[in-house]
């Protein structure tokens, strides 16, 4: 048996399923090993380990696969606390539909994972919970708000995790921890049983170590248990994509993407685009889309948390109040305008930016993964600009309702990941996962995106990609 996770199990779902299907291990044994490993959570990402559930039928596609999710989903065994001191007041009786779909595919939820309070925050900062630690580098920040999900996947404590993404909350933690983060098309997955922040921006997303794991989980999340449809026009080869690229954020006051990051992304884009099929574009409307996204976020967050703001429900932390309070004072006409313009902006994006491209590539962070001390608001070394850098490429994707995936394409000399964001047309999640899978194969020999300091057993080709 190849022991690659703390549970002593193969690092991928495919490897685990192969063992189970060959009869070398039962699904129940695999889950027991994963439960034991979760007891040794040295990174403080686990909020609660869940009681053992009945073992699944071995023939189910995710039988034996242990998952752990952001503590924002109503589970059969738990009403989530959403990173607060209290259980979700308006939790429904039934578990979230997305959790049920994963269970029907044979997976089991092993734990609830830590998060920024009520999903408000681009980092793991949450004074009510132990500080989570980045397995890649304890000085590096863990992004938020699905912070426990990023950490649990990077540490190998589970095969996949659901998070939520309102303005980057799946993609930011994934990018700081060196794992894949998929934010689906708005509305692609049902949101019942998921505590809301800003419902028209919220998406349930997937974090996983590699593209194949993410694709298996994504397939299970679909309404039908059949494999998710793949756009047959998408290239089958790594070097044959039609790409639009934009490395420069046009917003005034936004940090320019640094040279090292640009070089890594440029090399990657050249490597995977067909000759003559790469186009550098300007996203001149990005600042406007960010403004509109923020208008929607503040307004809907204020509605979500109005009772607490009025002190008719448990108090909110300063970080949550900072998101919700402006929404109380924003004129309704600004919100209406932002909503009325959404479909037209999304159509413009697809017809202009993706006119002759399969995907748009952007940076994730313009200047690398910061230290925790730079981006926690209570730190003496807090630098607001560094915090802004964590989400400046994120929220417009939610506003436009598009699917996006982020994953590392290289690691810097400091051992921290350098990630790319790929954005596709609505409904093209499978295209994104195919793109990520080809990049993973080409850059990391198909062994997942995570490179822990203790796992530097890279092939020569992977070492070349260590910038």
């Amino acid at each position: 048996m190849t022991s690659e996770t703390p549970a002593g199990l193969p690092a991928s779902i495919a490897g685990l399923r192969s063992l189970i299907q060959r009869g070398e291990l039962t699904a129940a044994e695999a889950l027991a090993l994963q439960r034991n490993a979760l007891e040794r959570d040295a990174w403080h990402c686990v909020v609660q380990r869940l009681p053992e559930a009945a073992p699944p039928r071995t023939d189910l596609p995710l039988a034996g696969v242990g998952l752990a999710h952001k503590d924002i989903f109503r589970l059969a065994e738990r009403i989530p606390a959403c990173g607060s001191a209290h259980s979700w007041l308006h939790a429904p009786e039934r578990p979230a539909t997305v959790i049920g779909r994963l269970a029907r595919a044979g997976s089991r939820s092993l734990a609830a994972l830590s998060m920024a309070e009520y999903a408000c925050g681009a980092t793991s900062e949450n004074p009510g919970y132990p500080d989570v630690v980045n397995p890649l580098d304890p000085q590096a920040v863990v992004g938020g708000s699905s912070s426990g999900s990023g950490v649990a996947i990077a540490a190998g404590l589970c095969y996949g995790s659901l998070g939520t993404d309102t303005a980057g909350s799946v993609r930011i933690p994934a990018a700081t921890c060196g794992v894949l983060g998929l934010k689906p098309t708005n509305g692609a997955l049902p949101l019942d049983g998921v505590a809301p922040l800003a419902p028209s921006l919220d998406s349930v997303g997937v974090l996983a170590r590699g593209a194949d794991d993410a694709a298996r989980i994504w397939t299970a999340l679909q309404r039908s248990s059949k494999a998710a449809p793949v756009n047959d026009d998408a290239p089958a080869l790594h070097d044959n994509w039609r790409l639009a690229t934009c490395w420069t954020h046009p917003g005034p006051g936004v940090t320019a993407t640094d040279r090292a990051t640009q070089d890594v992304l440029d090399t990657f884009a050249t490597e995977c685009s067909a000759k003559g099929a790469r186009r550098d574009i300007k996203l001149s409307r990005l600042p406007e889309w960010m403004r509109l996204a923020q208008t929607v976020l503040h307004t809907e967050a204020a509605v979500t948390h109005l009772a607490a703001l009025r002190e008719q429900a448990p108090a909110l932390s300063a970080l949550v109040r900072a998101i919700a309070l402006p929404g109380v004072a924003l004129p309704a006409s600004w919100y209406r305008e932002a909503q009325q313009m959404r479909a037209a902006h999304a159509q413009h994006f697809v017809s202009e930016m993706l006119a002759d491209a399969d995907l748009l590539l952007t940076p994730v962070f313009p200047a690398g993964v910061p230290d925790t001390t730079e981006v926690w608001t209570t730190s003496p070394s807090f630098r607001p600009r560094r915090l802004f850098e964590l989400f400046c490429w994120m929220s417009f994707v939610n506003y436009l309702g598009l699917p996006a995936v982020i994953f590392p394409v290289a690691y810097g000399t400091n051992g921290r990941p350098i990630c790319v964001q790929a954005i596709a047309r609505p409904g093209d999640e499978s295209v994104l996962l195919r793109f990520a899978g080809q990049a993973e194969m080409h850059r990391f020999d198909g062994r997942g995106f995570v490179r822990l300091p203790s796992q530097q057993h890279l092939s020569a080709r992977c070492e070349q990609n260590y910038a």
Partner: protein
Amino acid sequence: MDIKTEHTETDANYDAVQVLLALSCIAATPAEVSAVARTLLRLAPQARHDV
């Protein structure tokens, strides 16, 4: 715009936000009121090309 006028405008925004929050039965600290006023200025539609 001179400093005096700018100061007056900021004060007006602060006061307006304070009133809006009070009308919504929400208590906020002075720092929160200031932050909300700044956010409103940043998100105002006429400022879209200056964001």
